[in-house]
């Protein structure tokens, strides 16, 4: 149980319309090397700010207090090499006028010191690993020629190209339909296990997080509400807010709201 990332008293504030808004308040938590940790919360909970802070992607206008240390790395991390980041909207993270192959090869070339031809060979292997149909033609395709799910597979290939220790997926499946979401979650799980990566899975969906993560951290209004194993959070939450989130989940076994409203047909 050694920590890959150790976060202590992390506070992040933004300036908005002349006011100072605290996006994160005194957050302390460890990301254990090799674990799958989910950060869940609603809008404004600070979950994405936490992901950006860990990746060193906070806007310059933000003020950061506290520490983020990398005992598992022993040095400052480099985004792209040590941290892979998958965003919600793959179109926003892929260059629309660069071929898929080049975007992935560029990561491998930059961080692994490969030649272009080695990097392209690596890109092809990665496209196979993310199970993109027909990887040979995909190398020469542009992002707009792919579906949303296929684009997210490409974004994942680029994120893991340099063999990062930590993979951060920030609402990476939220814009996808349920079936594609399940496929991408299964892919992330598989790749993380195969490469021994640590996963930070940011989501608004507690059920999705419960399916993938070993531990869940619940955030609300910039504060860490509760952190525990998935089974403990789901079966025996200690905080009322966690209970609220669990109760608000409308699963396939939920009581019909129709009957509650006395509306049965």
């Amino acid at each position, binding site marked *: 149980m050694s920590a890959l990332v150790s976060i202590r008293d992390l506070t992040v504030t933004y300036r908005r319309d002349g006011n100072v808004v605290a996006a994160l308040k005194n957050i302390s938590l460890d990301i254990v090397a090799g674990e*799958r940790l989910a950060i869940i919360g*609603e*809008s404004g909970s600070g979950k994405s700010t936490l992901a950006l802070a860990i990746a060193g992607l906070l806007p310059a206008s933000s003020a950061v207090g506290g520490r983020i240390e990398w005992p598992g790395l022993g040095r400052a991390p480099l985004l792209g090499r040590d941290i892979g980041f998958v965003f919600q909207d793959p179109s926003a993270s892929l260059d629309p006028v660069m071929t898929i192959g080049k975007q992935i090869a560029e990561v491998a070339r930059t961080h692994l010191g490969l030649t272009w031809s080695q990097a392209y060979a690596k890109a092809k292997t990665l496209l196979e690993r993310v199970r993109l149909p027909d990887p040979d033609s995909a190398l020469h395709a542009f992002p707009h020629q792919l*579906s*949303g799910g296929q684009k997210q597979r490409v974004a994942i290939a680029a994120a893991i190209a340099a063999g990062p220790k930590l993979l951060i997926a920030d609402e990476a499946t939220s814009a*996808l*339909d*349920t*079936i*594609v*979401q*399940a*496929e991408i979650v*299964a892919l992330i*799980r*598989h790749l*993380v*296990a195969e490469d021994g990566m640590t996963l930070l899975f940011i989501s*608004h*969906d*507690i*059920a*999705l997080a*419960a*399916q993938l993560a*070993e531990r869940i951290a619940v955030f609300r209004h910039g504060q860490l509400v509760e952190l525990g194993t*998935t*089974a403990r959070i*789901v079966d025996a939450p200690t905080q009322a807010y966690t209970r*609220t*989130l*669990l109760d*608000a*989940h*409308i*699963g*396939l076994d*939920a*009581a*019909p*709201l*129709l009957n*509650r*409203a*006395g*509306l049965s*047909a």
Partner: protein
Amino acid sequence: MSLLAVSSLTKRYRRGGKTVIAVDDVSFHIEPGETLALAGPSGSGKSTIARLVLRLIEPDAGAIEFESDDFLALRGATLRARRARLQMVFQDPLAAFNPRATVARVLEDPLRIHGIASRTERPRRIAALLERVGLAADLAPRAIHEISGGQRQRVAIARAIATRPSLIVLDEAVSALDVSVRGQILDLLLDLQRKERIAYLFISHDLGVVRAVAHRVILLDAGRIAESGDARAVIDAPQSAIGKALVAAAPRLKGTTQDAS
């Protein structure tokens, strides 16, 4: 007589020199006060059907009967008048409104356009609509971009009910909301349905929500109806391949494997 009867609806698109059949010979009906859900993966035709029913786009073939009229034959003033009875709420309320408008302005438009309330009457009607959807009347002067996502979706519902519709098309209307807000909005929709007998065409990718709120469901796959019936019966025991895939993919809180596969 059904409130809405759609028969053999077909819509084709040309994309990159190829013809894509977005909606392929789809027929269904909705009764007054009923919720019919359309569910299916991306590209299955759910939103195209919504846009066809709203006459935002025209079909290549098929018929739509709404409140006993041939809806596709209506033109001009008759169509505009009948549109008051058929309203819509979309996923992103911010995209559906003029972002510079105030809440009052958003609600005033339908009252004015459809001649529902005189200028002097409108402020009172707007206050009543806000109250009906669980919002304070003092929200009226606020800009639409200032209020929260949940409040904005309540305003969208208030705008939809302003013209006393018999049918509201809800296209992923609760999908972008925080879960704690989503339940309140669903409760509001069900309360409106019970008290005013509004029917819903409820479009969603979320089978859990569909199962909880819809009377009947149609599962779509590549523009065709794969399966339809009582929402709970279909979702509890899907027969079609797409139905089985959708149910298998729905996230579950319990009984999930925690070991890496």
